[in-house]
């Protein structure tokens, strides 16, 4: 019946984690994941049939040797890290991590998630697989069974972390399973910025089912930047979900720059009154890639606010389905949810679809949406060219202009440059 898990030896996986002194409660979660994976269907995506993506190539758990210096970790990709607080996952395990004395002294925790379940179970257990649950679909179940490495970021009450904490997730072993889980807990009135990069250097098919869970407590503020730059052979399926309590804020910046098929679902659950979410997503598609990107805001608390902006550029034969979902629950009065999705197509074979969806069960609210799908405007090209600018440069200016409202908002210079260079590479101009 179910072929998707055939490539994985369940006992071998469980044994591998047990050998690593994984606590019993985590093993129970994994066993449950294996069981659910047999029963549950794949998620149903708007206008994308992922049955055709032939998912099920996960590889085996392969852990890297621990490194003492960043220079030795992550190969050349470590140059993307410029923070004193950093973590590198290579294939199925953590290769390097460091946290300054100062932050440690303030009670901040930033380690691999496997280490955290052993060392800080009381801080991990109440949250792990609680924002995204194993029983949602076959994908989340498989993730619950197979996740490894991962990152755990904990910020105690009233602690403000100024410097961004960075994580690099690297896959460069053809046989390795690559399925990080990121868990962020920001206690009351704390603030933190987390930046992740995902990259790969493999030539065989891999399927990555990733989950990021963020818990933003009362009055806390969390900025998350996620830049996906995985190769053609990787199918990247990711759920990012934040639970935001009263007066908490979540800021998402997502760069979908993968070269292979991708599904991403980035959601803010605004549970508390006055909770706020801002999501900015940019995406460049090329080749024959299919992408299905969803951004959601769920308003439960009163006077909660959300803004979502997605800009996608599609070239060659790429297809993107862009969904924006604003859900306002009954009782969430005084809320304001806004969204904009824009797709720019650079070739006649590129396809883009923008679907703004408003689901509103409360009267006293504001909600707005704007969506557009179109080609580069020939009048604009003519205008720029008439000033002596060559066609390719004119197109480049227009495309970057299209992405600028998102890129220019990125607070971290290094991240902005990296996103820009990834976009340039995907646009075939670097």
């Amino acid at each position: 019946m179910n072929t998707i898990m055939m490539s994985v030896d369940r006992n071998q996986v469980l044994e591998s984690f047990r050998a690593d002194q994984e606590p019993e409660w985590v093993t129970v979660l994994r066993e449950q994941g294996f069981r659910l994976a047999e029963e549950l269907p794949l998620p149903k995506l708007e206008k994308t049939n992922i049955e055709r993506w032939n998912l099920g190539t996960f590889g085996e758990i392969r852990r890297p040797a621990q490194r003492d210096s960043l220079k030795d970790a992550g190969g050349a990709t470590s140059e993307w890290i410029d923070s004193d607080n950093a973590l590198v996952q290579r294939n199925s395990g953590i290769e390097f991590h460091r946290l300054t004395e100062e932050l440690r002294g303030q009670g901040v925790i930033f380690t691999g998630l496997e280490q955290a379940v052993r060392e800080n179970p009381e801080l991990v257990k109440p949250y792990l697989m609680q924002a995204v649950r194993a029983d949602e679909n076959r994908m989340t179940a498989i993730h619950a069974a197979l996740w490894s490495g991962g990152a755990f970021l904990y910020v105690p009450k009233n602690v403000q972390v100024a410097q961004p904490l960075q994580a690099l997730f690297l896959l460069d072993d053809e046989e390795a399973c690559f399925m990080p889980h990121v868990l962020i807990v920001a206690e009351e009135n704390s603030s933190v910025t987390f930046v992740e990069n995902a990259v790969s250097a493999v030539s065989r098919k891999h399927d990555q089912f990733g989950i990021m869970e963020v818990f933003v407590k009362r009055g806390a503020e969390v900025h998350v930047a996620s830049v996906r730059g995985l190769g053609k052979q990787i199918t990247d399926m990711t759920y990012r979900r934040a639970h935001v309590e009263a007066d908490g804020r979540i800021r998402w910046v997502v760069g979908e720059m993968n070269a292979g098929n991708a599904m991403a679902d980035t959601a803010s659950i605004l549970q508390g009154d006055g909770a706020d979410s801002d999501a900015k997503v940019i995406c460049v598609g090329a080749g024959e890639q299919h992408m299905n990107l969803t951004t959601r805001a769920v308003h439960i608390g009163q006077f909660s606010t959300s803004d979502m902006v997605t800009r996608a550029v599609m070239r060659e034969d790429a297809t993107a389905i862009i969904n924006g979902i604003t859900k306002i629950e009954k009782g969430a009065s005084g809320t304001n949810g806004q969204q904009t999705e824009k797709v720019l197509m650079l070739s006649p074979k590129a396809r883009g679809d923008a679907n703004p969806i408003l689901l509103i069960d409360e009267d006293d609210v504001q909600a707005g949406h704007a969506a557009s799908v179109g080609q580069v405007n020939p009048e604009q090209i003519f205008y720029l060219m008439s000033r002596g600018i060559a066609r390719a440069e004119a197109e480049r200016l227009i495309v970057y202009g299209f992405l600028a409202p998102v890129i220019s908002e990125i607070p971290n210079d290094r991240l902005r440059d990296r996103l820009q260079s990834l976009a340039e590479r995907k646009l075939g101009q670097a």
Partner: protein
Amino acid sequence: MNTTLRIDQLRASVEGKEILKGLSLEVRGGEIHAVMGPNGTGKSTLASTLMGHPKYEVLGGSVTFNGEDLLEMDVDERGRAGLFLAMQYPSEITGVTNSDFMRSAINAGRGEGIEISLLKFIRLMEANMKTLEMNPEFMHRYLNEGFSGGEKKRNEILQMMMLQPKITILDEIDSGLDIDALRIVAQGVNSLRSADRGFLIITHYQRLLDYITPDFVHIMMQGRIVKSGGPELAQRLEAEGYEWVKEELGIENETVGQDEDAFQMPMNTTGPKIR
């Protein structure tokens, strides 16, 4: 070499309709030509065809620019060769700042390795904006986005001043400008007058020509130039309109490419009564 734009028996169509029906004109360095005429006589088509707008198809005739075949050049090559069109309806481009755009345009003309330095560029742009009495913040605004009609026109003249073209075509630069803006725009044009630069000013009205004195005035009807003269011709048009020209030349309908069976308001009917 002295600048020359030579248009010979140019015929062009838009959306399958022939608009330019054999137009000839020569603009040389140091000269200012005004092309005047009522609406729908092909003036803007002339401007767009010369610049190479993809919607306009050349059916016949020739245009040479300093001896080279202009019609064989791509739009950007025309720009780099020194042709400039100040457009009636400039495009708005989100995300591209005015300064990034103008620097790209200047560097496109200069070529790789000899790009203008950022400092020099900013000084140049600031000085020109001052001449045009533009708010310095327009440097960092997105190209034409949210600009008023007058601001767009000034921005066109700013580009002209930055790029220093050999031949400038002003397509109804005066429409929608108040008298102050008109004076400033004219000042920009006059500041660029020199022996090796030519101008082709397309306009309905005489009033711009009060500020920029043309050497030649041409009247356009039915897709060609039907009458040429000096500045006094423009003054007579201002005083008497175009009827006398039509009478003199025996032209009944001066327009071109308009549908002959266009909707006509029925005579002797009354509109619905509003109670």
